[in-house]
Each structure stands twice: as structure tokens, then as C-alpha cells.
């Protein structure tokens, strides 16, 4: 039995036993190479699940949908290691109760081979070592290095050109499992910190704020980067923030679910070389 069939029947069993009220997985998409999120509430619907190497989205974002888990019932969700990492972060930020999430884990290797991951509860997965050693794809790494080597002026121009394209559709925010705020700072108008207009200045501010709010919280799933309709390389700036947090505080977000969020904690001997 392939992993797809195995997970279909597991999802069906979870639903028919009443253990979970909903299974969030993937279904066929509008073209042969696309997969779309699929929500199954009955064992029959679970037969429509598709699981293959094209299932790259991080479905944990749906778990923070307002009201979904407020009834205390369980939800099962198909997750890759980056999704599991998101769950760890969400639990450590008290956005999820571990007992409400059943994980149908899988990993994609080399972009094509798909293997199931052992375990169903978040505590079954130890992904700490794996994610700490996880380097981003070579092209991201190279691009990040290229930017680091630029002068400040060049870097500014690089980002200015990219942010100039931003249309403030907030797809980056909406697909991100960590962007669960009921009222985002850009939607606050008393006072209006970030201008709502999508001119380059407003876009610059929005993108800086978004990146900063994800510092030490990003699961590096790349959802924002894929969602961006104008192809801003958001992953670069997220990667840089993650690196800073590891280098400065030896903190890697989502290693486990018992972490204290990095910017909500401190050590007395944190580095401060830059402070006059």
C-alpha cells in the first residue's frame, strides 16, 4: 500500500471513529502539477486525499483559523517537517493545544520521494537536530550571500526594486501560520504606524515589519515566498532573521514545543557588541 492509500484510510478511520472532527490534507488541483488544500469531514471525503511530492504547502496555517479549535475537538492535518515545526512554534506561543492536533506526517526527499513520518502527536516528533542542520536551498543561500556582500546602498536599491512591486495583497501574511494576529499592525489606525498605501515607502515599512515580527518565529516553510504574486524573495529576509537568532542567541525556532519565544525571553549575557 502506498503512502497515499495508507493516509487516506488512516484519515477515514480517524473520522469514522470520531477521534477528529476534520482532516486537512491535499486534493487534486486545477492542473496536473497543482495540489489544493482539501477538508474532509466524512470518511468518504477522505478518499479524495492526494499525497505526493507536489504537496508542498504548509497546511498548519488553517489550524489558527478563528474558531476552528475553540470547541476543544481534534483536527488531523497532513504536515511535512516544516509544518511540524510550525506546530511547535504555535504551541510554544500558546496558540494551539498539543492534544487537539493529530499529525499525519510525511517527508519529501529530493523533491520526489515521499515517505511517511512515524508518530501522530507533536511529542512523537523530534525534529530539533534536523531543522538546526537544515540549510536553505542553495539558490537562497547564494542569493543571501550575494546580498551580504553588497554595499548598504546596493542592498537598499535591491530591496527597493523588490518592494516597489508589492501590492499589499497580504498574501504573505494570510498564508503564514505565524501571522495569526486577529488585528494586524497594518490594520490598526489609531495610530496608523504603517501606511496602508502601497507606494514603495509603505511597502518598505510593511515588509520590514512583517519580517521583524517573524524573527525567531519563522518555520522556513516558504509559503510567503510562494504566495507572493509579484515574486518578492521573502524567503531571503526570513532566512537572514533566522540566522541572526541562531548566531546571536543560539535559538532555533520550532525545535520543540517547550521553547520560550526568543523575543519574549532573554539572558543576562546576551551579546551587545553594538551598544555604545
Amino acid at each position, binding site marked *: 500500500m502506498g503512502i497515499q492509500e495508507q493516509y487516506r484510510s488512516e484519515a477515514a478511520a480517524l473520522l469514522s471513529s470520531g477521534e477528529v472532527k476534520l482532516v486537512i490534507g491535499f486534493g487534486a488541483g486545477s492542473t496536473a502539477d497543482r495540489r489544493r488544500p482539501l477538508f474532509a469531514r466524512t470518511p468518504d471525503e477522505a478518499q479524495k486525499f492526494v499525497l505526493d511530492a507536489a504537496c508542498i504547502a504548509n497546511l498548519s496555517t488553517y489550524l489558527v483559523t478563528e474558531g476552528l479549535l475553540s470547541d476543544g475537538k481534534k483536527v488531523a492535518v497532513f504536515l511535512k517537517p516544516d509544518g511540524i515545526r510550525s506546530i511547535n512554534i504555535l504551541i510554544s506561543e500558546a496558540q494551539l493545544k498539543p492534544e487537539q492536533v493529530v499529525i499525519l506526517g510525511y517527508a519529501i526527499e529530493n523533491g520526489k520521494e515521499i515517505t511517511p513520518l512515524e508518530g501522530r502527536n507533536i511529542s512523537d516528533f523530534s525534529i530539533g537536530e534536523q531543522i538546526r542542520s537544515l540549510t536553505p536551498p542553495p539558490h537562497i543561500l547564494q542569493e543571501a550571500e550575494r546580498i551580504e556582500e553588497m554595499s548598504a546602498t546596493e542592498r537598499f536599491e535591491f530591496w527597493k526594486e523588490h518592494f516597489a512591486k508589492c501590492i499589499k495583497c497580504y498574501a504573505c501574511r494570510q498564508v503564514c501560520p505565524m501571522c495569526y494576529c486577529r488585528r494586524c499592525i497594518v490594520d490598526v489606525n489609531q495610530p496608523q504606524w504603517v501606511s496602508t498605501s502601497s507606494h514603495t515607502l509603505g511597502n518598505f515599512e510593511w515588509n520590514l515589519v512583517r519580517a*521583524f515580527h517573524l524573527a525567531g518565529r519563522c518555520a522556513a516553510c516558504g509559503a510567503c515566498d510562494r504566495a507572493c504574486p509579484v515574486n518578492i524573495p521573502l524567503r531571503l529576509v526570513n532566512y537572514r532573521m533566522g540566522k541572526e537568532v541562531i548566531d546571536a542567541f543560539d535559538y532555533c525556532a520550532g525545535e520543540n514545543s517547550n521553547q520560550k519565544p526568543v523575543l*519574549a525571553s532573554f539572558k543576562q549575557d546576551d551579546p551587545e557588541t553594538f551598544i555604545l
Partner: protein
Amino acid sequence: MSEPFEPKIVAFVCTYCTYAGADLAGTSRLKYAPNVRIVRLPCTGRISPMFILKALQKGADSVLVSGCHPGDCHFTAGNYHARRRWTVFRALLAFTGIPEERIRFSWVSAAEGAKFAEMINEITDETRKLGPFTQYQELQKVIETQSSY
């Protein structure tokens, strides 16, 4: 440009240490550059990165953020939290091309009036050398002109 460039510097300071330090500089009759505009806040923990962005948006050429020395926070740990935030925010600004020399962080206690005066002079001089932060200010200018994009 006939007028010489006078840098605009915005300082976000905590009221218990750095503001008191600035006060001491004043009462001690220490002279420091008039280019700095001080914004007093309860604690460095209250100084949101938004403030820094807003200052730049409104035309600041440099920003200074300053508070109590580690261990001296009136609220026990506000400055420790702020320090972590600054570390990350500073890296972000650097990565997006906002020069590190334009965003300064310091600890100035209530007793360090001299340090405050000296630091302001130094920052003013350095900013003067850097020149106006035109790259960022251009963005503000552009939005005032109608364009069809």
C-alpha cells in the same frame, strides 16, 4: 545646496536613565549638538521598532535608542528584552540596506551626563559626514507626486 547640511537626529530614550542623563548634561551646562530631538518613553522595552521606522519616514538622518545599563532597568528587565529586539532589528535593517551607522543604541545612566553629551556630539559629527539619508527620504518625496505607476 547653499545651506550646509544639518543632520536631524531622533533619540528615543527611557525616562529613568538616559533622559535623566540628558537632564544632567543640561544642568551641568555641558554643551551638545542641538541636532537631536529627544523622545522620552517609560522604558526601552516600550521602544517599538515602529518608532525607528516612523522617525526615518519623517526625515530623520540618524536614530538613537538609549536606556538604562543592563541590570539597572526600573522595570527589572525591560532593557534586556529591548536588547534582543534591537539585535534582530539591527540585522534586519542592515540586510535591507539601511546603514548601521544611522541607527545607534546605547546605555546611558542618570549619572552619565557627560557620556550623553559626548555621544550626541559624536553621532552628530558622524551623521554630518554621512550626509542626509536621501535614499530613504526620496521614497517620501516620490509619494507626493502623481504618477501612473
